[in-house]
């Protein structure tokens, strides 16, 4: 189960829980993140690291990272819709390029959280190329991807950093979007411009990819 609920807290709303219905909001799921611990240790050695949080934005996370001495930019990344398949004999309609509105080689660390899962398979390589474009050589990328499950509609969750190796996964106020389950090989291909330093499987079947820009 992705969002666990604690006993005795049903009347407490979780910040940012979507919808104002009567159903009690689930408690955020706290977990350890060895990959996050590695990147935070690494950026702590830099004087003024440029960090990009691809969101959905969590204020605590931004402040936590800024408190580490980094300059933290936030980007509300909107994954592209799945390309429309053309009818037989017709050309595929042109689609706008996938773009992260940041300058080239600007960042030492990009936290993409679970955004990858909301990028259609056809756009995965393009997304990886954009991440490579905005990262400086040697810059680090932390991205999460679900290891199991089929396609479904879901809200991209947000992550609150509560310690150097502790994160809380919780609902965000983002729109419901289609979510894919990308095979590890497809993720590795999309991150071709990176050297993948580790893939860690969380208890909740979320894969953590830690990659370094070549």
């Amino acid at each position, binding site marked *: 189960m992705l969002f666990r609920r604690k006993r005795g807290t049903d009347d407490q709303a979780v910040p940012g829980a979507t919808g104002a219905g009567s159903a009690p909001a689930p408690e955020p799921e706290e977990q350890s993140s060895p990959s996050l611990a590695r990147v935070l240790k690494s950026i702590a050695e830099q004087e003024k690291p440029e960090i990009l949080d691809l969101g959905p934005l969590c204020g605590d*996370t931004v402040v936590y990272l800024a408190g580490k001495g980094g300059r933290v930019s936030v*980007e509300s990344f909107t994954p592209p819709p799945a390309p429309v398949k053309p009818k037989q004999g017709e050309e595929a309609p042109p689609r706008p390029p996938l773009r992260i509105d940041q300058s080239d080689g600007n960042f030492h660390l990009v936290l993409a959280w679970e955004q990858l899962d909301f990028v259609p398979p056809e756009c995965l390589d393009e997304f990886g190329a954009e991440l490579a474009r905005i990262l400086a050589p040697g810059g680090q990328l932390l991205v999460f991807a679900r290891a199991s499950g089929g396609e479904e509609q879901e809200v991209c969750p947000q992550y609150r950093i509560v310690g150097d190796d502790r994160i809380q996964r919780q609902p965000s106020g983002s729109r419901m979007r289609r979510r894919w389950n990308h095979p590890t090989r497809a993720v590795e291909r999309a991150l071709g411009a990176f050297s993948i330093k580790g893939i860690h499987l969380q208890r909740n079947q979320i894969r953590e990819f830690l990659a370094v820009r070549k």
Partner: protein
Amino acid sequence: MEKLVNIGKSIQIKGELTGNEDLTIEGRVDGKIMLKDHHLTIGANGHITAEIHAKSVSIVGQVVGNVTADDRIEIAATGSMEGDIKAPRVVLADGARFKGAVDMDRSGAKKPASTPSGTGSAAASGGGGSANMPRSASGKG
């Protein structure tokens, strides 16, 4: 009791605004705001397009421009901010909209931040951030 100074909803100012007392702006200001050693509140009806430098800044309304504070910057849940913020203490409340970068310079934010970076936007949905402050100060439970 200290007198509250307000710039009302119907007031529009273009140019540089300086002062030596706390100020609440509910109107429109285009230009530059300097309130050294004092607190600035951008009220719910405030629309600011300006570079801001104050001791502390609370944003409940809308701001476009870089904000520097020597003590603290707080963006409330209803606040909207486009530009870079620089202060030793920062609070991003749940639901606040923010577009820019955060720099918590511990050495003291004396210089105004550079021009807006034009970075992406995001809404602080479900997250409220604070540093060096009680968690309740960010408007969360």
